[in-house]
């Protein structure tokens, strides 16, 4: 059955009827000689009404948006609305043209069977028809596609990429796929829908496929929005296009659309225009596998995975502002205006640079301090001590000692073995192993061949770990039995390599391809590949996830080497020093520093299992002068100090430097651990996964700071080579101030360091937020201009907004006062929680305190939530006595004092109090609602 195109009903939520138009399009291919009617959304008139001239001079360009199956142009209503609003507000004006593909939405039903090449040709015919009637796509064109609309939009883009008019300016994609690897079954929902019989029933006869797709929205669609999506597909006749689309999925090479899909997949890799990939990773069809494939083809793309979002990402997340902001940053008006005078469009000009590195959020410039120094790779010292029989790594848990000679040889063999099996530069390798000599060898082997090491520790929990592994989509997983079992049962991606030799049956059951042992054997006879470059990606470390889902942090080789050099210089580490490390990232740096390293007996994923005796034994075994411990480990070490004998105490007395790494710890705790190591200088540096060492302070430094009038936790002064600035909070509690070193200003801490991360992994929007209004963002803007100087000036540092709140004092010391999202905006202005928390913790009855806000933003009331001594047995108001003592301890007015048995903390550190969660709890409790424990 056929039907003409029509206009949508006028009352669909969010859809302005004035955007809709019907376009007569002379048919091509199987439609040759006929005219087809298309319905599309076109914001040209809306822009004209808003006073924006819809000509090439007045427009920034046109966004050509293509929906997938089974949606229609309604999918793009928010970018239509948002772009018109932005243009009316004086921002760059983008016209949006969003088609309903033939057989879909309100476009014509032709009863003609359309294959992928036909659909790509149809879209071309549509834009030609617009040009013919004088409403052609003006200015630079950005294609935007979702689902199979992504493939079709890319088909159009490829056809225009090489054209002399160079109209194609950028491509943007939401969950889609251009390639399906041979040998991997297609996603089950599609397999099911495509099966004979099921196909017709689920896609056409009933609205099941349509409804299933709409149900993927997370949070669920409002009933009226769901009805709007269903509106053009009310009958089986009108749904025929949905079934035809599913039938057109090229499941194998025999399929009639396979060749076109292959052409597009191959062609995409040659696209040099800026690309944006916005992804909902919970999509049961277009999962991370397809994102990873697209990233391989478009290595210069800006990628953002919206954790928790699914297939209908256009409904789930604010994609419209993300696309428009990105266009603003990538295609600046300056470059647009000068387009006519340039021999080649500026986007082309930028492309080679963009292509050369994934590092988009921050310029890939070498840092000024390093620019002159020769680059030494992380394995430099390992190579240098290749023949040395002295001990390099000691694993106390497994009682293993490995010499430099053994370590270097094993690293070289594994590296060559990995390369021989095809692991190449840029491939991602996930390591699911306990620290020790084997992990050390594998880590350096991966780095040596340019593979990108993914380090996500078990502290994230199985859910967090799964998210991390799926999000990075590793090519290879190397793990011990436990990790491999998880990988197998949870369906983690990647070729699996076992760390130990497994019986054949077990290897088969775990889907293991080979073992490290076999790999090393192969590698013994193989050649090492060329070394990676200093600006190639080296590693992805995961944040703790204490503030939302864990984020992957990408480091280049140069940045890791810088970390080694900063650490070595700051702590004066030489070959004789020796390190005891109970903290994962630092545990692996020993060989890089050229000194022996020891992991004490402990479960690294549970730092609280470390005892004083175990630390003493590790020190004794290695004669180490430096001990690194995490705050949670320190707590237990101090608690178990009574078990130490005289010999063990003597060993600890030989330590000269002690570091708490992970989170700042209190003076009392540092003093207690200092008593265990009487000759050591205790340090408690401040850092984060994004920059492991920012500032440092010693115990005596903390004691000096105690006399200062400042509030917060003093974390000392920036380590040599680092810069720390503060972006002041405004009255609304937002860090909008220009980063400055002025003392006494409360704001977000902004840092720069040679060993600062490159960027986040597949979190473009997070990168933009983390570099917002920093000097590096300015460098980016400059770089986006035509003829921007490629040699970055010495000021071209990378910067990072830490999300930490604090201030600098007159002596240049940094004081931490909480997290930016924990700012309490009261009627009197923004309040940082840590200062009053410290006051409150001085009350005798208080063990630990958190200060949070209740009430509406701008009118918050500060409330103290405390753990008491003795501990409260139930949660509720503190006793009148405790309340009075707490109020007396601080000048900050407190609306209420609540007592809880235990404050909620994040799993990994067991020290960072989850103030956001507490605030929600306190709000409910003080509203009089029934509440349990926070």
């Amino acid at each position, binding site marked *: 059955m056929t039907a003409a195109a029509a206009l949508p009903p006028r009352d669909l939520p969010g859809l302005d009827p004035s955007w809709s138009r019907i376009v007569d399009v002379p048919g091509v291919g199987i439609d040759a000689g006929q005219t087809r009617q298309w319905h599309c959304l076109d914001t040209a008139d809306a822009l004209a009404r808003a006073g924006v001239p819809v000509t090439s001079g007045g427009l920034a360009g046109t966004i050509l948006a293509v929906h997938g199956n089974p949606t229609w142009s309604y999918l793009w209503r928010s970018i239509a609305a948002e772009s018109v609003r932005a243009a009316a507000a004086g921002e760059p004006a983008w016209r949006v043209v969003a088609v309903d593909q033939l057989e879909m939405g309100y476009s014509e039903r032709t009863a003609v069977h359309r294959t992928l090449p036909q659909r790509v040709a149809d879209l071309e015919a549509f834009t030609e028809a617009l040009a013919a009637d004088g409403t052609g796509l003006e200015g630079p064109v950005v294609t935007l596609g979702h689902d199979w609309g992504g493939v079709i939009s890319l088909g159009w883009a490829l056809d225009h990429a090489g054209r002399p008019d160079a109209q194609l300016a950028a491509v943007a994609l939401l969950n889609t796929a251009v390639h399906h690897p041979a040998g991997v079954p297609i996603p089950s929902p599609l397999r099911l829908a495509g099966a004979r019989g099921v196909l017709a029933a689920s896609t056409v006869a009933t609205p099941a496929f349509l409804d299933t797709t709409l149900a993927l929205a997370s949070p669920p669609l409002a009933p009226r929005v769901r009805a709007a999506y269903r509106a053009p597909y009310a009958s089986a006749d009108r749904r025929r296009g949905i079934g035809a689309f599913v039938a057109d999925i090229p499941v194998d090479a025999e399929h009639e659309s396979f060749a076109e899909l292959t052409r597009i997949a191959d062609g995409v890799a040659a696209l040099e225009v800026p690309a944006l990939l916005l992804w909902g990773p919970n999509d049961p069809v277009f999962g991370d596998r397809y994102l990873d494939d697209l990233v391989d083809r478009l290595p210069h793309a800006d990628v953002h995975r919206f954790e928790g979002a699914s297939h209908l990402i256009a409904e789930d997340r604010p994609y419209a502002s993300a696309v428009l902001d990105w266009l603003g940053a990538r295609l600046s008006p300056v470059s647009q205006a000068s387009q006519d005078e340039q021999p080649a469009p500026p986007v082309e000009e930028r492309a080679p640079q963009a292509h050369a590195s994934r590092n988009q959020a921050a310029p890939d410039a070498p840092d000024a301090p390093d620019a002159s120094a020769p680059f030494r790779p992380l394995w430099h010292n390992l190579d240098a001590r290749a023949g040395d029989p002295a001990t390099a790594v000691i694993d106390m848990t497994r009682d293993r000692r490995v010499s430099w000679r053994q370590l270097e040889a094993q690293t070289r063999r594994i590296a060559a073995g990995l390369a021989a099996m095809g692991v190449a530069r840029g491939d991602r390798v996930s390591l699911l192993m306990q620290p020790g000599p084997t992990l050390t060898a594998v880590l350096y082997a991966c780095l040596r061949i340019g593979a990108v090491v993914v380090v996500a520790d078990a502290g994230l929990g199985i859910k967090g770990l799964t998210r991390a592994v799926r999000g990075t989509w590793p090519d290879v997983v190397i793990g011990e039995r436990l990790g491999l079992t998880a990988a197998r049962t949870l369906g983690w991606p990647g070729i699996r390599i076992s760390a130990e030799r497994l019986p054949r049956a077990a290897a088969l059951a775990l889907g293991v391809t080979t073992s490290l042992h076999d790999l090393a054997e192969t590698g013994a006879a193989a050649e090492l590949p060329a070394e990676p470059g200093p600006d190639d990606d080296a590693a992805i470390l995961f944040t703790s996830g204490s503030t939302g889902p864990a984020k992957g942090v990408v480091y280049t080789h140069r940045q890791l080497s810088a970390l080694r050099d900063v650490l070595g210089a700051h702590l004066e580490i030489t070959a004789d020093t020796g390190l005891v490390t109970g903290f994962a990232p630092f545990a692996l740096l020993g060989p890089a520093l050229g000194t022996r390293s020891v992991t004490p007996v402990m479960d690294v994923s549970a730092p609280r299992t470390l005892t004083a005796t175990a630390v003493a034994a590790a020190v004794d075994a290695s004669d180490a002068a430096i001990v690194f411990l995490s705050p949670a480990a320190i707590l237990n070490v101090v608690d178990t100090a009574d078990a130490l004998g005289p010999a063990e105490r003597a060993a600890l007395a030989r330590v000269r430097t002690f570091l708490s790494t992970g989170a700042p710890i209190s003076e009392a705790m540092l003093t207690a651990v200092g008593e265990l190591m009487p000759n050591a200088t205790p340090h408690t540096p401040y850092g984060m996964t994004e920059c492991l060492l920012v500032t440092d302070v010693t115990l005596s430094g903390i004691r000096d700071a105690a006399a200062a009038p400042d509030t917060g936790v003093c974390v000392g002064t920036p380590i040599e080579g680092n810069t720390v600035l503060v972006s002041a909070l405004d009255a609304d509690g937002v860090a909008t101030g220009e980063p400055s070193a002025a003392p006494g200003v409360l704001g977000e801490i902004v840092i720069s360091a040679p060993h600062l991360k490159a960027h986040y992994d597949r979190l473009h929007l997070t990168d933009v937020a983390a570099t917002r209004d920093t000097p590096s963002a300015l460098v980016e803007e400059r770089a986006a201009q035509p003829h921007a100087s490629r040699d970055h000036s010495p000021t071209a540092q990378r910067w990072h907004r830490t999300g930490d709140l604090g201030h600098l004092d007159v002596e240049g010391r940094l004081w931490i006062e909480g997290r930016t999202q924990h700012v309490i905006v009261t*009627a009197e202005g923004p309040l940082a929680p840590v200062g009053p928390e410290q006051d409150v913790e001085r009350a005798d009855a208080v063990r630990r305190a958190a200060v949070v806000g209740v009430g509406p933003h701008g*009118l918050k*009331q500060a409330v103290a939530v405390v753990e008491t001594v003795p501990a409260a047995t139930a949660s509720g108001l503190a006793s009148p006595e405790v*309340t009075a003592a707490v109020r007396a301890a601080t000048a900050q007015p407190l*609306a209420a004092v609540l007592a809880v048995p235990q404050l909620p903390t994040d799993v990994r550190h067991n020290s960072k109090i989850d103030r956001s969660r507490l605030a929600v709890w306190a709000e409910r409790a*003080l*509203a*009089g609602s029934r509440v349990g424990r926070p």
Partner: protein
Amino acid sequence: MIVLVTGASGFLGRAVAAELVAAGHEVRTLQRRPSRVAGVTDVLGSITDPARVALAIAGDSSGSAEAVVHLAAKVSLARDPDDFRRVNVEGTRTMLDAAEQAGVSRFVQVSSPSVAHTGSSLAGVGAEPASPEHARGDYARTKAEAELLALARDSAAMRVLAVRPHIVWGPGDTQLIERIVERARRGRVPLLSGGRALIDTTYVDNAASAIVAALHRADAAHGKAYVVTNGEPRPVADLLAGICLAAGVRPPHLSVPAALGRAAGSLVERIWALPGVAARAGGDEPPMTRFLAEQLSTAHWFDQRETRAALDWAPTVSIDEGLRRLAAHYTPPSAR
């Protein structure tokens, strides 16, 4: 300025009258009993009596009142509903009519935040419009009607504004403080939801100064209602404990789940309404009404920014200072 204050024998009315005298105004009062405020001229009578009201406004030799501060109201929590309407609604209408006729230029209607409180939890809200349909209980309902009535009379000739002080307390308060203390002595103050609900209160001096500020700022701030509080919300249990400690009695500790408290309050209220029950039980009010239960179990605290800006006013006595003054009030002179 010649100012007529109604209800000046009450706890807040007395404070307002004294504050006006201190500010240099000529103060006349209207209520059934002597106000016992120094420096004022009492006119005894009811606001429901148009003749007495006209007389109070017209005055004698000194001249007609230029401003009215209308506090007189029926406040008891559970008595005859018709009483509430007669005094709170009709009495206010009588006051407004008489004031308009006499050419009064400023009229301050003293109202209550309960006129806009529907029983749900309020956190940091401003002065919502009075709503007789949704207000809980006869007092709040009739006060809501009265406020709407008053604000509707706002005109160029007579500037009307409403001030809603929230839970006024202080030394000498028989409405709230004495009852709490009395019940605490008898162990009859249950804490609903553990007394966690955050509520705003107003120390009496602050309420009085806010009302006087409203009178002074009537030209700029007229036509609206303003919630007035100390701006220091506290959990109910904190406040009760503070009051009890100040009065030297043991603070309440028995906790009752809020829903149970509300249900019990509602039931008690109905039984109390049966003829003779109240009298047999000693003539007091029911130990807890549903209204009171809601007041004590849900958060209600307010955004004071607009009030403070419009009235150019800020509280001068903090809750802690207020409690100190309360303690001094309860301490026998010999022990001071």
